[in-house]
């Protein structure tokens, strides 16, 4: 019976349509997984397993999904994992929630995250850290750690996370699942509790690349409630599944830079796999990612200090004394870098360096169709690793920040599993703005040419 929860999203939809089992049978399977593991792993902050109608005629056919708890769900508690919002039940649905309901999703839970999505571990959650389902001595990564863990633990058919700089891809890497960060502006932010408004991108976290393409189809596209969404209509992303990557030009980034000793050899092997599929693979050097950390840190702290100013306990939630140390730290730093006399030195300079990164990528994409790198410099870190490290997340996400501050689409696919610890390493694939099709195509080809994906092998 519990095998139902190991089905990919694509197979779940198909099986529901073929009436191999009913939605209520499926939901009770998920319920038993959740009841068995959630207390220990602390993946879901809220479960909403009841009252989901059968909807076989809809595209998602009722498939059970989990969404990160910084995404507003009407009448369902939405906390962003901070007690500031304890008990807050939004009077509206985020646009992506609305779209998922319309596509026939059953949203069965809200997943844990670093409070306000500030972090790369879920250790800053004011509702307690999430543990990695692959190995509970380790962290799931973050900030969408709960969503990635929910997928890895078979608590849902697929999940939605949000990324500002690594928050989808890094936990996906640590939990050994697929995480797709769309181009900034591809997916509506309306109703997503803002972290850094100029880089926040909601996206799918799934068992397979195909599942990510399926979910992206339903959440992508212009939203008249979000002025920063692109007006171009989103293509059918699933057409990039099972396509040849012959003659595609692939650039390997950040080879040989300090701190990547663990992942480097695995990336070499990725290169070989892609070459065997007909791609042209070459090393390439790019702007120092350490500068991207600085740009991101300054921009993100500034925007955070502004976005969290509305949390005053008057119209909803609790007052500002409920903020955890990490949020306070970020608000303080952002306030400082935006204040008189410092804005020029920090904020304005950072935005200029951001332009240099955009130009650098433009140059690189003249020579390459996609760029690849490790998602994270290492395997998942041990529980407790982040205590009191002001820059933990940024150093962890260094390899992803250049593409985050420039808005580019990227994906994580598992590219190695350690037999002893059961922990994963991840491959990050980045393409030019609006070219999610390319990252999906390459990731799918890679996934199918290797054996790291346990769910795909079951199908």
């Amino acid at each position, binding site marked *: 019976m519990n095998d139902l929860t190991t089905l990919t999203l694509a197979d779940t939809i198909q099986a529901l349509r073929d009436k191999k089992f009913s939605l209520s049978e499926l939901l009770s399977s998920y319920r038993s997984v959740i009841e068995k593991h959630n207390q220990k792993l602390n993946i879901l902050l809220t479960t909403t397993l009841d009252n989901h109608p059968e909807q076989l005629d809809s595209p998602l056919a009722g498939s059970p999904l989990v969404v990160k708890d*910084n*995404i*507003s769900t009407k009448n369902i508690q*939405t906390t*962003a994992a901070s007690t500031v*919002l304890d008990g*807050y039940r*939004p*009077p*509206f649905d*985020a646009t992506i929630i609305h779209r998922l309901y319309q596509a026939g999703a059953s949203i069965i839970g809200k997943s844990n995250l670093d409070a306000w999505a500030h972090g790369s571990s879920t250790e800053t959650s004011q509702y307690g850290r999430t543990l990695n389902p692959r190995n509970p001595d380790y962290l799931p990564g973050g900030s969408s750690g709960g969503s990635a863990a929910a997928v890895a633990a078979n608590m849902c058919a697929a999940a939605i996370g949000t990324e500002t700089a690594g928050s989808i891809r890094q936990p996906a890497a640590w939990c050994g699942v697929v995480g797709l960060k769309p181009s900034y502006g591809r997916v509506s*932010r*309306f*109703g*997503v*509790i*803002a972290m850094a*408004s*100029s880089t926040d991108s909601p996206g799918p976290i799934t068992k397979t690349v195909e599942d990510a393409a399926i979910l992206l189809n339903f959440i992508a596209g212009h939203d*008249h*409630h*979000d*002025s*920063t969404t692109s007006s171009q209509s989103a293509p059918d992303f699933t057409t990039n599944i099972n396509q040849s990557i012959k003659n595609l030009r692939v650039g390997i980034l950040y080879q040989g830079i300090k701190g990547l000793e663990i992942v480097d050899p695995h990336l070499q092997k990725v290169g070989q796999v892609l070459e065997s599929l007909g791609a042209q693979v070459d090393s390439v050097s790019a702007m120092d990612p350490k500068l991207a950390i600085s740009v991101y840190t300054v921009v993100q702290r*500034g*925007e955070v*200090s*502004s976005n*969290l*100013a*509305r*949390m*005053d306990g*008057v*119209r*909803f939630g609790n007052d500002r004394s409920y903020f955890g140390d990490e949020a306070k730290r970020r608000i303080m730093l952002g*306030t400082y870098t*935006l*204040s*008189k006399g410092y*804005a020029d030195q920090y*904020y304005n300079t950072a935005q200029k360096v951001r332009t240099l990164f955009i130009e650098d990528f433009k140059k690189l994409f003249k020579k390459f169709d996609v760029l690849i790198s490790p998602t994270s410099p290492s395997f998942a870190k041990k529980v407790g690793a982040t205590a009191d490290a002001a820059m933990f997340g940024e150093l962890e996400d260094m390899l992803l920040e250049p593409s985050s501050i420039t808005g580019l689409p990227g994906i994580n696919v598992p590219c190695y599993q350690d037999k002893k610890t059961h922990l994963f390493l991840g491959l990050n694939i980045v393409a030019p703005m609006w070219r999610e099709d390319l990252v999906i195509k390459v990731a799918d080809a890679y996934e199918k040419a290797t054996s790291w994906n346990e769910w795909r092998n079951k199908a």
Partner: protein
Amino acid sequence: MKQTEYQLICGMEVHAELKTKSKMFCGCKNDPFHASKPNCYTCPTCLGLPGALPVANSTAIEWTIKLGLALNCRINLFSKFDRKHYFYPDLPKGYQISQYDLPFCYDGYLETSAGKVRIHRIHLEEDTGKLLHKTVHNQKVSLVDFNRSGVPLIEIVTEPDIKSAAQAKEYAKTLRGILRELHIADCDMEQGGMRLEANISLQAVGTKELPNYKIELKNINSFRFLEQAINYEIERQSQVLQNGEQLNQETRGWNAVQNKTFLQRTKEEAEDYRYFPDPDLPPIRLSTNQIEIIKQNLPELPLERAKRWMSNYHLQPEFATRLSEDTKHAQQLDSLFKLAVNKKFEPSKLANQIVNKKITVNYQNLEATLEEFESLNATATVDDNDLEKIIRQVLAEHQDAVNRYHAGQKQVLSFFMGQVMKNLKVKADPQQVRSTLHKYLDN
């Protein structure tokens, strides 16, 4: 000790709510003054709920540019919205969406009878909610209503060109006339639909040095209070400076009961609003063509209309200005003057009598108005002999007044006019009486 004379240095900041159908950044109804209850015109965006986003109202942008063009401003072809941060319970997001370094309009002017007042900038922002200060269950609290939150608000900032309280009042009234003429704002002062602020300091006459302080007069809700408050401040500040004391930056309000200004807040440290471009709102780029179209569709403004009436109908400036402010009846007044000319009446006399309330204009029936004008001013031609007889009689009776006239007190003439008119049994043409009087007196 010698009294130093001071010159007023004054600039104004005027806020006006635009009367768009919906709010500035969301689709909520923009009608806070007529809402049936508090907090009934809100949505996640104007309540500042987590995750809600703004989308700009294109009409509000167009109207701001319209006002800029009417005030002879230059228009920024590239503009954007910025976040201005401060904490107050009526500001739901902890920041106000405003414009920092690229306002829609800049470098314009408005003409007053005492000279041009240069417009520094006009920008578009969102209004805050409204606070009501009450005691509830023995606790002093403020009640917050967000019906007004997010209503489009324009701020018009002048250069410190205003030289008198009267000029400040004229500036503000003329500005209101323009806002109404453009049909972009109702400017209900009582309700706070238009809010006046004056930045006031004094400069010793003869010195070039600019004052090193500025008193902000805030929350003035009538033109009369504005004038009174500025005059009060001139008096107060002169005395302080005369005593050799320093004036500091502070904000003052007007107490209309005691007729004086009062201290609201001193500025301990410079404000730090931490402006940065709002990442939720893409910038705005306008073409010269778009601006040209807005310009061509501008209606005639009161000042232009007054000028036209002065040159076409020879209205005296004072009456032309007064009547031109009545934007609601501008067209009918135009027709009325034209009709008057056709009937060989003097429009200037007509205007004078309308302003002085001798005639009430019947806007439904302009012909009737002119009939009233005609009968009011009907005169009989008096027989010259009868007139001269009466004049001789009056002069004889008031020989002392005649002497005074010849001694140079020409104003005695009006006394004679009155006496003669009284003695005539019919309504005489004053022109005829005056010239005959002159004949007798000046020969």
